[in-house]
Structure formats: C-alpha cells, structure tokens
C-alpha cells in the first residue's frame, strides 16, 4: 500500500465519501425514496441529488483554486451549504 502514498487529508476525504455512501444505502433500505421535482430542472432521486451536489462541489473548489487566492476552507464551507440545499430542496 506504500505506493499509494496516503495522506491524512485524502484519507479523511475518502472516508467521508464512504460514510456518506453507507448512510445513503442504509437510509434507502429503511425508507426507499421516490423521484421528485425540486428546483433542479429534472426529476431526481436522493442519490442523483447527492451526485449533483458532490460534482458541483468539485467545480466550486476548482473555481476557488483557479481564480482566487482565498483559503479553500471557504470553498469547503460553501460546498457543504450547497450540498445541504441540493439534498433538501433540489
């Protein structure tokens, strides 16, 4: 595993993703979700919204890195807020 060059931040990142996926699966088994229409232009399921949220978060980080010198923690904060909004109202 040495060649994979793990670092603490990336390990945390992947654990976070894994935990989300596990939670979503458990939640899905407990209460299966139905497609619904929120403020996004298409009908989405919970999983779709999670994916849209995460992908957009990736782009938010890229924009921050590419266009500004601001700390990435701001981008991280914005991403969390965005993720919550999409999951709840998307």
């Amino acid at each position, binding site marked *: 595993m040495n060649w*994979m*060059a793990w670092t603490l931040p*990336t390990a945390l990142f992947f654990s976070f993703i894994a935990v989300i996926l596990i939670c979503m699966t458990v939640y899905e088994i407990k209460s299966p979700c139905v497609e619904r229409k929120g403020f996004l232009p298409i009908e989405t399921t919970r999983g779709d919204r999670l994916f849209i949220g995460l*992908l957009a978060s990736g782009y938010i980080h890229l924009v921050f*890195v*590419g266009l500004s010198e601001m700390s990435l923690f701001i981008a991280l904060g914005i991403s969390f807020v965005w993720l919550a909004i999409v999951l709840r109202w998307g």
Partner: protein
Amino acid sequence: MKKVVNNKAWFLVLPVVVLVAFSAIIPLMTVVNYSVQDIFDVNNAYFVGAEWYRDILQNPRLQDSLVRQFIFSFFVLLIEIPLGIAVALMMPTKGARASLCLILLAIPLLIPLNVVGTIWQVFGRTDIGLFGWTLTHLGMDYNYASNPIDAWFTVLLMDVWHWTSLVALLCYSGLRAIPDVYYQAASIDRASGWAIFRYIQLPKLQSVLVIGVLLRFMDSFMIYTEPFVLTGGGPGNSTTFLSQTLTQMAIGQFDVGPAAAFSLIYFLIVLLVSWLFFTTISHMDKAK
C-alpha cells in the same frame, strides 16, 4: 418493460463491481493522493495542498491544450455527425451489397490506433504519399509537418476517415428500424425527400444520434495515439491535445503531482459531460 425490485440482483453485478473497482477505484484514489503531494520517491513525499491544482489551472500551456481540445472535438462532431447521417442514407438497404458496405465501412474502426496514425503519416507525405503528392502536384503548398493549418487539416481528415463509419453504422441501424409502412404513407402523401428525412427519419435517429455524439465526443476528447504518431503534437504545439500533454507530464517528465492534479481536472470535465449525456439518454428512454 416493468422491472421487478430485487436486491439479490446485487450478487449478479458483484463480479463486475469488484473487477472494475480494482481497475478504477484504487488508481483513482492513488491519483487523488498524488495530486496533493510533492513526490520525490516513495519515502520522500510532502503535502502541498492545492498547490498543483493552482499551477495547472493557471498554466498557459495546459489552458491552450484544453482550448485546442474543445475546438478539435467541436469540429469532429460538426463534420462527422452530418457526414455519417449522409453516408447511412446513401447505403444500400439490403442484400449482399449492404453487407459489403457494412464490412468496408467497419475496416477503419478495426485498425490499431497507431497504425491509423502511420497510414496517414505515409499517405500525407509529399514524397511517398499519394495524398500529399497529389496536393503538391496540384500546386498547393501542403506540408503537415511544418504548417500548423495543414497539420490540423490532416489530423481532422484522419479522424473523419477513422470514425465517420461509426456514426454511419449507428445511423444505418437506426434507419433499418423504421417500418416500411411509414415510407408507404409518405409516398401516398407525396412527401418530398426532405420532408421524409425531417419528419420520419430524423426523429427515429434521435436515440442513436445521442449515443453517436456521446461516443464521438468522449473518444475525440481523449484522442492520443493518432495525432501523436502523425504529427507528434507539432508543428510546435499546434496539435498537442489534452491526453498528450498529460502523458508527456506523467511519463516524459515524471511530474507525478501536477500530472495527477491535471488528471483529476480532466476527469471532472469528462464526468460532467458524461452525466449530462447519460441523463439525456435515460430521459429519452423513459419518454418512449
């Protein structure tokens, strides 16, 4: 078709998941790890945060190759999609001639990518290649190795030669799925050729065209071997596309960190585009 809910189906997909996860997730995690470190060797790696990402996003060489890549993919779609439809419309509909056409059309798709590059490298040369020789003797100043415009023209022509068949075969199978009744009705109504195309054939081609656009966009977006063999990315950097820039960085200069950051940005672009296409396709399937 109504599908049954059955979570045991997971056992059937498990082998695929394990296999692809081994080849996709482990490498992807590794790329993420590399992208945040400055790596000299296995025991000397330093965490640098988002440094490489900033470098990459602000690096003019990469921005240029990204722009070139989009222009290239745009032209590929602009030429190959209409040409492919036209070829499919002209193909014989049945019998041995149709089979022959199919096989001949499929030939370019079956040639290893570097051989495609070699074929055009030879074919376009002004001394020993028929194409370059003909152009030169027609009085044109053609040289794909020194003139960027000629190089672009040759790379595009090669891609059209190589991949238009894919679009044509897709459309051909789409056209064969139209029942004869439609055409009979159209001929009773004395519909013009254009009207038949616009109101009968094109709507039926919609789903195959989405697949065609998707495959052509993706494959042209990751094109590497053919231009690498044909022009080596030159003259200058005029035909250096994304994959080649990336490969140069990763293998040529062994800049592991920046190459990894670049890979992930590349991957995010691809992920967004394929998600858009996939959503479109599944919505069209649903509409049916």
